[in-house]
Each structure stands twice: as structure tokens, then as C-alpha cells.
């Protein structure tokens, strides 16, 4: 629960970075998608998605946590509402693809997860909703949304780099079980960081 709350807060903090409103489109480019990808990749599928849910509930309650200090129920009726909703399954899919068995993810899995979950899933929900709200035909809306692709790909790359760097900087991040997970006989302890090179631990 603490991690879910903290990552929800992290997504909010990333909203403090000023967004880039691109002329000609009504949906801003924001760093928050990076937060969503990270939540999925680091927390895993379900907790990652839950942290996005928590974040969105707070937005709905009126917190100005969206890019550019936006917030409130109105946010769920703008053209970008679908993207917001899409963040929930997005984090889940990123988590499932990146870390199907928990533990430290392989870089190519993170890459796969962020592209499929972090980009495709978000677009799959966001673009139709935007088309619906604005009344602009789906195909044209999709065309407009192409301008997000470079930014989102960059965020996917950054996520891969970050997850790899984090694994080095703070290996505890990916421990399968948190601290205090209960008593285990000494010889059955899961592989720790030092054991990475060994075959113990059965990490995928």
C-alpha cells in the first residue's frame, strides 16, 4: 500500500513539470506517462495499475495533479480523458509484460512492455475517446496523435534506462518480497543482489 501511494504521488509530482501543449492538438505532451510506465515496470502489473487508479481518484476529487495544474472532474470530460483512463490498463500491461514473474526485469521485456502497454494500450483507448469527444473522425484523430509517438518512444527508452540504472543503484527495488516478509530458514532465502551471478534463486 505504501508503494502504491508513493508511486501515485510520484505521478503527481511528474505533473509539476510543465507540459508541452502542441499546437493543433488538444492533448498535451506530459512527463506523467513516464510515471505510469515506471509504476508498471517497478511495482508490477496490479500494484502499478492501482497506483494509477489512486492518482486518478485524487484528480477526480479536485486535486490539481494533472499536467499544467489541471484537475477536478472536468478532466474526465476533456478530449484527453481517454488517455487518462488508458493509463490504468497501461500500467498493468507494462507490469505484466516487463515482469511476468516479479523480480528484476530484463531490459528487452521492459522495452516490450513500455511499447505495447505504455504506448499502444494508451492510444487504443485515448484516440477513440478523443475522436468521440471532439467529433473528429477516428482516422484523422489517430493521425494527429502521431505527434506523440516520438515523445512516447523517448519515454519508453528512458524507462528502460531508468529501470536498468535503478537495478544497479537500488537493487532492493526489485526484491521479490519486501523486508520483513516472514521467517525463512536461512538456506531458503531468495537470491540477493550478491547472488546475481550464481544460478541460485531461479530468476528468469
Amino acid at each position, binding site marked *: *500500500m*505504501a*508503494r*502504491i*501511494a*508513493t*508511486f*501515485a*504521488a*510520484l505521478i*503527481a*509530482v511528474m505533473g*509539476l513539470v510543465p507540459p508541452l501543449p502542441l499546437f*493543433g*492538438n*488538444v492533448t498535451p505532451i506530459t512527463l506523467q506517462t*513516464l510515471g505510469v510506465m*515506471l509504476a508498471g515496470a*517497478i511495482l508490477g502489473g496490479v500494484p502499478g495499475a492501482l497506483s494509477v487508479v*489512486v*492518482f486518478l*481518484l*485524487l484528480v477526480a*476529487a*479536485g*486535486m*490539481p*495533479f494533472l499536467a499544467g*495544474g489541471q*484537475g*477536478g*472532474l*472536468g*478532466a*474526465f*470530460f*476533456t*478530449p484527453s480523458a481517454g488517455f487518462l483512463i488508458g493509463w490504468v490498463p497501461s500500467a498493468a500491461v507494462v507490469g505484466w509484460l516487463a515482469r511476468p514473474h516479479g523480480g528484476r526485469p530484463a531490459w528487452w521485456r521492459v522495452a516490450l512492455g513500455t511499447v505495447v502497454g505504455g504506448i499502444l494500450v494508451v492510444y487504443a483507448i485515448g484516440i477513440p475517446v478523443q475522436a468521440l*469527444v*471532439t*467529433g*473528429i473522425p477516428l482516422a*484523422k484523430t489517430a493521425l*494527429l496523435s502521431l505527434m506523440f509517438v516520438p515523445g512516447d518512444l523517448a519515454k519508453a527508452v*528512458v524507462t528502460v*534506462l*531508468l529501470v536498468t*540504472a*535503478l537495478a544497479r*543503484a*537500488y537493487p*532492493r*527495488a526489485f526484491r*521479490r*518480497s*519486501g*523486508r*520483513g*516478509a*516472514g521467517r525463512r530458514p536461512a538456506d531458503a532465502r531468495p537470491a540477493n543482489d550478491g547472488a546475481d551471478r550464481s544460478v541460485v534463486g531461479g530468476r528468469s
Partner: protein
Amino acid sequence: MSGTTADGRPVGVVSPGRERSGGEVRRRARGRDRVERLFGTYLPGHSVIHRLPAGVKLLALAAVGITAAAVPRPEVLAAAGVVTFAAFLLAGLVGHLARQLARLAWLILAVAAGQLLFALPVPLVVANTARMTIVIVLASLVTVTTPASQVLAALERGLQPLRRFGVDPPRVALTLSLTLRTVPVLARQAAGIRDAQWARSGRYSVTAFVVPLLVAALRQADRLADALAARGLDKGPRPPR
């Protein structure tokens, strides 16, 4: 885990509308602005709209939103527009409506221009844009007339039926509060990291910023979990491995 504060207000947030004596109000006004910026966009007041239960407002909003989307006829939209305007009048927030519309202007224009660009018929463009605008400003009316704590409490009540699917509303409410507490903590850490990074290299790089921020966040999460445990809140059952 009752999900309420000491004085019986529901979880969460400061109630920025609490009255204080005259001088105090002015002295605190600035601080209150800061609170509001961080903790929500409620504008205190005593109108009928302010006093309506949060749940009623949320349901009304949903009703208008769904009707406008399902029956996109000019007379329906006109009626919705009138209702919305009347609600703002009742709340005494016409000024806020104007500001809100001004803020939305670029969005409205962009949406309308986009549709015209794609050669949609003008009446349809007007209807589409009007529908979107009405729902957004009506939603913002709900937000500014309802303290965030009430919205959260209504949410908690609204989640009750989901108990059957394993949702634990008080736990959700608690998580929301924890998040609110954590936002300023992380924001301050983020500022510290940005300062340190600049002081050392004179440039900003995303990885050199986000890696320490992630580490800080994860540590904060661990410490928060410890603090919760120490204060009597046991961690939920771990999923079996």
C-alpha cells in the same frame, strides 16, 4: 480505519473554508492559497449548490453528461446549457464560469477548428463543441463547490457495492490520504535533487534526475510502510509465492 478525521470530517484534505477571526483570515490567506494549490480547487461558499450532498452533485453531473452524449439534439444541449448556467448563478460563481471559459477558450477553439478542418457540417461542430464545454464546466462547478474531502467520502461510499469484488473502501480512502501526504514530501525531494544536480553539473538530464527521485520514492515507500506498521496498521496479506 474509520476513514474520518478527528472532528468527523471525512478523510483527506484540509477544509480550506474553515472560518477564522478577521485578522487571522488575512494572515493565513496566503498560506491557504498554497494549501489549495496543492490540495484541491474548492472555493468555499454557502449556496444551495455548495450545500447539496456531494453524491447528489456527482449523480446529476453524470446524468447531464450521459444525456448530452446519448441524445445529441440541439434542444437537449440548449437545455443542458441553461441548467448549467442556472447552477452557476445559484452558486454565485458566474465570475468563475467566465474565468473557466476563458481558460478553456483555446481548447474550444482547437476542437472546433479541428472539426471544421475535417469539413464536418457546421451545426454538428457547434453541437459537439457545446456538449464538451457544458460537461467540462459543469464538472468544474461540482469540483469548486465541493471540498475534496467530501468528494473522497462520496467516492468511498460509492465504492461500497464493490466490496463484493474485494475492494476495501476504507483502505482505498487511506491510500488516498497517504498519497496526499506523500506528494509534498516527494515534491520537496525532487526540488532538492534538481538543485543538487544543477549545483554539480550545471545541466539537467532526465536520468540523472529521475533515478535519484525513484530511489527517494522507494525509500520513502519503505519508511512509510514501517511507520504504518509501527502505528498499528498491518500490511495486507502478501500474495503467496
